[in-house]
């Protein structure tokens, strides 16, 4: 069933559904909400026609007046054509003429004409049978009541619609008949009412998505059919079900080209996301995330409070955002109140528990003792049996509650959402407690000419701080706990007979993990407060002026204390160490946009102009102190320590500020819904650049051709959609940190003059006054298709993106530079790829439906250049990543002509009789590792997956539904660093080893006890995997309650099973660099300290009141 404004504005399904039953006065609000222009009255119609279809008649009205006509296609079935001859007729007159003898009626408000079926009056004439009244309840497949569903008796004009609770009542002239249930966004269903039936309950299936879907685009919305660039939209009903911790996990595997990796089970971790390969170096891979139009992060709102997520993938779509659009743009829309609904409450709650998916198998005490018996260097038997991992892990139990209250009257609607999550991690003490409140109110006044929106949200978060960190919003779990639990001697024990913790401070990097956990007291508290206000003013016809102001305020506070039993006292004599930090960030945004819409016959024009001002301000301070008189103060009385007075404590504070100013405009043009054009430009300035390079221009243009709308395809039944798109756009990137162009000084060094130490002036950085915008240009060609009434649909996109003037902290020569890196623009890089999405409904019957979708993407990356006139990285490469202590080598090389993510090291080919590596030398001949030279290193793998594939399935059978999500990544290698570090006999001096550490290498001999750790290709392993990511089984309780509209219960399992040949614990490793700090060019490292990946099991229920 299609239902739309003929002017071409297809409305969101939920709004249209309501339109059917809502009082007409509300239309004002709705049309205003959709930014449709108003017009005066009194236009007339002149037209003469015979046997004109109703559709044609409506088109005539719209082309000659500014009235819009709103109707359901199904209503016109069987209505027949009409003939008329109108001369300067008023609209009402014209309608009256044409509806004569038709079962149609209409209402007009402002300039919207809503067509309705005539009420079933006087249709009982000639009936011999007794009339019967049929009642029932109409719900969707999740048992949520559907208001406003049309119920008609087939073959008659008798009809009604369901009320707010989905109940309907229809009076049939005879005792039987065939009822038709239709509603926007649902498949029209007919059910026969046989004699004697008085109750018919119906569950309507959702219709496959089609062109009427409304997509959120930059600064507005667009019908899917009008879109000319690559945009993916995921609505809440298609989100990943079960336990999710951030917005990205909701759409994992749902969007071709968007890789979402969850590399560990830490409850404070957020997903890593990467769209269309690594396009920029310095700013990470994170796309710009906007929540209701205001920048934020993936955790700014609770996942359960999200209505839809739209991903602007290509440059032509993202260019309207200029800066930061390079990695794509993720537009998050929070849940909104549906117009004119009485207050309703939804409650979503679930509980989860987790287990470590796969453990690293270390030697147990008995196996370790065999090494002691063999007199292996470093092996010591303390005489006990301890499973250290068990000591620091537990079975977590997490709870999530989401309650939302929504309501709407004619001019005002509101949403109150409260989300509370109490998450526990598998590592003891790792937790995350967040409360997300949000209140949004919309109000329209002055006949809808002025609209106000207020949106107040934020979060209050607290979690265990197991590590002192100079940044808040980080530093939660201390990786040392996990690492030392792995490597701690299994014959040792946590405490001696007197209850004192046992430490071995003379061993390197070796701390009692139980003591570390129990003697570290820490708490991080983050508070976020977002206030967003919007004023929309519609001064004249077709013009919409919108002013948006927002402030995003974060306050973070960490307190951290190491007791007198902590390693820091045993090892460093700290005698109690405290740390306190405070961070405040404030991001202010002011945006003014004006939109102008005009339809002239077959031409539709939409113009956007705007101005944006953003300022980001950071203040933080932290201090340390130690040597406390008692542990009782913990971190709450930092002045009580003595180290401060001895000049040994640290106190720091900083403040930075930066600003972005931009002007932008866009034109959307559509001719006959066939030929589409979009062109935009953004001029953006950033404080972070050199004086002459502040501003950059970011233009975009894209075109579309709705081939299906051409006459030769219009009648095709098998083809339901075919659109060709092509776009080109430029986006920009600014440096992550401000002040890189300035020659800054620091004073943290002391020189000895005249018998005392004084502060000396020390340059802080290599300044780069020529710093300028990084630019990414992208060509995207796409095809949208749909067959068999969109039972099969999807998209294919091909893109090529080129980034130039890549910003990065490039290594530079010392001399002439003082420091060996400088933030500069030098490299250029290319990414090209293909994305394919196929959605299908292979089976659909009354009771059973199977929806399936497959996403595939592939990306190829190549570094084109590494130098420009300012920076001569003439060697053509630089090395990045770090193996970590005690080997200190780069893991990866960035090299011209090569993709990013190349592992670079010695290629191990053999092992000699004494257990020492044999590598392939520069000349291709084997040589002992002891004779290594830098020139012997080779490319030994690549850590970035070349192919991503995901497959999502939804099965519904009566009240049951089953979701199965699977996904995989292919064509990449992983640096198995746990194996390198923990299976080398030389590391026995540092602690326990993995089982199999003395197994033969290359089927010859084990590694020698004195073979130094070496970063060789033996540890670079194939990473391909296929994961059963999520299985969720849901059941909708059949209810006949007044108070509770619906209840759905579900059970879910995440990260259930992985098929891989990778030998480490989880092949889903970081797609960023392992230490997450410096850069993104060393992906694919299985960090030996990484918080273990977990499988999650969830039980949940969803109530609607």
């Amino acid at each position, binding site marked *: 069933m299609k239902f739309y404004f003929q002017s071409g504005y297809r409305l969101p399904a939920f709004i249209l559904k309501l339109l059917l039953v809502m009082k007409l006065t509300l239309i004002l609000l709705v049309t205003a909400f959709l930014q449709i222009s108003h017009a005066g009255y009194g236009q007339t119609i002149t037209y003469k026609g015979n046997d004109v279809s109703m559709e044609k008649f409506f088109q005539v009205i719209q082309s000659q007046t500014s009235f819009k006509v709103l109707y359901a296609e199904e209503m016109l079935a069987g209505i027949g054509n009409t003939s008329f001859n109108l001369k300067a007729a008023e609209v009402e007159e014209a309608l009256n003429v044409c509806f004569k003898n038709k079962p149609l009626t209409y209402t007009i408000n402002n300039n919207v004409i809503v067509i309705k079926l005539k009420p079933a009056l006087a249709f009982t004439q000639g009936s011999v049978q007794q009339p019967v009244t049929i009642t029932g309840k109409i719900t969707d497949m999740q048992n949520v009541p559907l208001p406003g569903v049309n119920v008609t008796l087939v073959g008659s004009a008798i009809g009604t619609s369901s009320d707010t609770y989905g109940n309907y009542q229809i009076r049939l002239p005879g005792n039987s008949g065939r009822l038709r249930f239709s509603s926007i966004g649902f498949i029209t269903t007919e059910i026969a009412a046989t004699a004697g039936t008085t109750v018919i309950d119906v569950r309507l299936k959702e219709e496959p998505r089609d062109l009427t879907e409304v997509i959120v685009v930059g600064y507005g919305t667009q019908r899917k059919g009008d879109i000319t660039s690559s945009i993916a939209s995921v609505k809440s009903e298609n989100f990943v079900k079960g336990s999710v911790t951030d917005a990205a996990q909701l759409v994992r595997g749902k969007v071709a080209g968007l890789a979402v990796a969850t590399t560990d089970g830490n409850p404070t971790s957020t997903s890593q996301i990467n769209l269309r390969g690594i396009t920029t170096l310095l700013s990470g891979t994170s796309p710009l995330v906007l929540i209701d139009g205001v920048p934020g992060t993936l955790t700014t709102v609770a996942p359960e409070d999200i209505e839809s997520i739209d991903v602007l993938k290509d440059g032509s779509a993202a260019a309207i955002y200029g800066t930061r659009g390079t990695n794509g743009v993720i537009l998050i829309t929070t849940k909104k109140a549906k117009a004119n609904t009485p207050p309703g409450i939804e409650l979503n709650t679930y509980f989860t528990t987790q287990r470590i998916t796969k453990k690293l198998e270390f030697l147990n005490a008995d196996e370790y003792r065999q090494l002691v018996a063999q007199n292996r260097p470093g092996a010591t038997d303390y005489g006990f049996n301890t499973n250290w991992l068990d000591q620091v892990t537990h079975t977590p139990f997490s709870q999530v509650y989401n309650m939302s209250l929504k309501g709407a009257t004619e001019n005002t609607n509101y949403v109150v959402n409260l989300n509370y999550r109490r998450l526990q991690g598998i590592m003891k003490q790792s937790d995350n407690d967040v409360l997300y409140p949000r209140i949004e109110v919309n109000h329209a006044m002055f006949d809808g000419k002025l609209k106000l929106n207020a949106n107040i949200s934020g979060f209050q978060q607290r979690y265990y701080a197991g590590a002192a960190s100079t940044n808040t919003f980080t530093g939660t779990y201390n990786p040392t706990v996990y690492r030392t639990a792995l490597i701690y001697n299994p014959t040792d024990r946590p405490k001696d007979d007197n209850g004192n913790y046992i430490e071995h401070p003379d061993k390197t990097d070796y701390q009692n993990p139980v003591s570390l956990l129990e003697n570290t007291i820490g708490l991080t508290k983050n508070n976020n407060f977002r206030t967003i206000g919007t004023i929309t003013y519609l001064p004249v016809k077709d013009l919409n002026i919108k002013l948006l102001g927002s402030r995003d305020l974060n306050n973070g506070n960490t307190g951290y204390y190491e007791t007198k039993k902590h390693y820091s006292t045993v090892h*460093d*004599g700290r005698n109690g160490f405290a740390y306190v930090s405070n961070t405040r960030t404030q991001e202010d945004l002011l945006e003014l946009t004006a939109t102008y819409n005009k339809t002239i016959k077959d031409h539709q024009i939409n113009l956007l102009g705007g101005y944006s001002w953003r300022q980001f301000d950071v203040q933080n301070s932290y201090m340390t102190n130690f040597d406390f008189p008692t542990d009782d103060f913990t971190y709450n009385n930092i002045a009580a320590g003595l180290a401060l007075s001895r000049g040994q404590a640290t106190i720091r504070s900083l403040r930075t500020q930066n600003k972005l100013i931009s002007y932008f405009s866009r034109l959307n043009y559509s001719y006959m819904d066939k030929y589409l054009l979009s062109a935009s430009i953004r001029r953006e300035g950033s404080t972070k650049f050199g004086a002459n390079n502040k501003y950059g221009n970011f233009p975009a243009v894209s075109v579309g051709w709705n081939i299906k709308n051409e006459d030769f395809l219009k009648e095709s039944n098998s083809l339901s959609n075919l659109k060709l798109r092509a776009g080109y756009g430029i986006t920009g990137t600014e440096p992550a940190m401000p002040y890189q162009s300035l020659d800054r*000084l620091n004073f943290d060094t002391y020189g000895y003059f005249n018998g005392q130490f004084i502060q000396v*002036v020390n340059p802080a950085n290599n300044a780069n006054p020529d710093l300028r915008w990084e630019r990414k240009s992208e060509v995207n060609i796409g095809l949208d298709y749909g067959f068999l009434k969109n039972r099969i649909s999807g998209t294919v996109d091909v893109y090529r993106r080129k980034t130039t003037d890549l910003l990065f902290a490039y290594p530079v020569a010392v*001399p002439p530079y*003082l420091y*060996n890196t400088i933030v500069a623009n030098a490299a250029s890089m290319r990414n090209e790829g293909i994305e394919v999405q196929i959605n299908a409904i292979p089976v659909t019957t009354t009771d059973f439906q199977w929806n399936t979708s497959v996403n595939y993407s592939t990306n190829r990356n190549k570094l084109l250049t590494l130098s420009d006139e300012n920076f001569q990285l003439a060697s053509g490469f630089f090395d990045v990543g770090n193996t970590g202590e005690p080997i200190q080598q780069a893991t990866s090389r960035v090299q011209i002509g090569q993709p990013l993510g190349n592992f670079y090291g010695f290629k191990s080919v053999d092992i000699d009789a004494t257990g020492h590596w044999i590598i392939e030398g520069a000349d291709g001949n084997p040589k002992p590792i002891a004779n290594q030279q830098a020139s012997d290193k080779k490319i030994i793998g690549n850590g970035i997956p070349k192919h991503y594939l995901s497959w999502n399935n939804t099965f519904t059978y009566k009240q049951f539904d089953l979701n199965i999500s699977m996904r995989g990544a292919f064509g990449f290698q992983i640096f198995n660093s746990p194996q390198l570090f923990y299976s080398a006999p030389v590391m026995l001096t540092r602690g326990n080893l993995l089982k199999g550490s003395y197994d033969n290498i290359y089927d010859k001999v084990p590694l020698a006890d004195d073979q*130094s750790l070496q970063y060789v290709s033996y540890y670079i392993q194939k990473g391909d995997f296929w994961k059963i990511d999520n299985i969720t089984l849901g059941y909708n309780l059949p209810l006949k309650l007044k108070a509770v509209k619906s209840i759905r219960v579900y059970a879910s399992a995440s990260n259930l099973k992985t098929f891989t040949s990778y030998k480490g614990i989880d092949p889903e490793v970081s797609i960023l660099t392992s230490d997450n700090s410096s850069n993104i060019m060393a992906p694919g490292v299985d960090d030996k300290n990484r918080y273990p990946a977990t499988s999650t099991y969830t039980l949940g229920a969803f109530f609607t009141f």
Partner: protein
Amino acid sequence: MRIKIYSLAVVLFLATLITACKNDLEEVVYSDVTSSNYNYDNPNSAIGVVYTNTRDLFGHQNYYMLQETTSDELVMPANASGWDDGGIYKHMHLHTFNSEDPQLNNMFNRLYAGVINANRIIEQIESGVIAPPSGVSKESLTGEIRVARAFYYWLICDNFGNAPLVTNTADKSLPSTSSRKDIYNFVVTEITAALPSLSENRDKSMYGRFNKWAAKALLANVYLNAQVYSGETKWAECLAQCNDIIGKYSLESNYPDIFKAQNENSPEIIFAVPFDQTLAQGFFVEMYSWHGALKGKKNMQATPWGSGSAMAVSQFVDTYSPNDERLGDSWLIGPQFAVDGSPLLGSYDQAGKPINFTKDLPDGLFTGESEGYRMNKFEVQLNAMQNLNNDFPFFRYEQVLMMKAECLLRTGDAGQAAALVSEVRTRAFKKTPGEAPVTAAALQQNSVYKFGYVEKYKIVDAGDQSTIQYGRFLDELGYEFAWEGFRRRDDIRFGVYTKKSWLSHKPMGDGKILFPIPQPALNSNPNLKQNPGY
């Protein structure tokens, strides 16, 4: 009409709004200072960084241990507590250094940071940005910084040989390699040119800085090794510089006092690198030489790393006379006790047993936790933190006397040389003064060092046994200057470095006299040439 008025009002309001926003894009700094808005009103503060750069040279992965562990004096073997670090310390002992060993890059970057800061400061003094303090001429202040720059270039010349020679900050083009001889000539020219303008003060105002005498000590050291750098000997020139200094400083009567924690008033120190446990960190030799259990020896706040590593090559210790008090003053020997007198215990191969530092090493690659004599030269105070307070005596009066003795010895005046060495030895043989004097003939004899390749505590391959000219004099340098960062240079000058075997070390060829240019430097500057043989 009303609509028009409203619209006008709205447009005006919005226009005001936009203009009210601060639309300029100048960066505003809050917790930073930029060079353009900083006033260099304190000259000491302005030039200080040239000296503070030297502190970073003293870590275990930098200049200091490169001078010691490549020589026949010290070794940093692995042990049960670790200390392998990918084999980077082994590379030094075995002379298998490669361009990726991080110590080399650390040293390279530190030395050039000194050079580049000096270049900038010289330019700032000349342009008037930095004004000299009252009573000091511009020429004198410039001269001091030029000598400091020459000091860094001397170390570059000594360690890397062929390297970039950069003397200004404006030119950001990539420098190419200058020859070792060119850098040597630059060093000599610069110091010579600056000498007349330098301060002759020897009080605390010039402590830790290049006054005329420190500059002369530097120049003497450069001349002393001139043959290695340029192929020409400069004994007479070296002697002249030494003679100028003699009489200006004096010897400490008590040898350990030179190296004590508060040694800044020592009359023997000519040029020091000042350290402080909190304000001027960077000297922590106990952390990498001492066993972790020795925390208890001084009730230290820090725990030395693992079982410690930097230790004496046993063959080196064997050269000492048992009566030489410098043996015990330089090396930590035998059983170790806590402050309260209880024995300190081992954790690995000596787990639970008292630690007893023994001289003999099985080889230079992997040792037991209490094998090898450790550092005892620099005083570790009670309650010491990781970083020590001891200033490092880079040039001291004794060293000037020994340079003079060497010049005399090499120019045929062995008698006077012997007199000088005997004078020095007096301080070391207070209990057995009869052993102090050495004869001219003795100094011209071969070294008493038992060179040879060691396996399982025994020399299994003596290797090159040819006579070392003035070998006995080299031995004297060893006794006096152990742990002072001179041994590599002395071994090279006396021909030991690339000819002899000791512990697990075997000669690896003359190419090893120069370290390779670090790989990151080569990678970032293709104009540089790697040293021959790497």
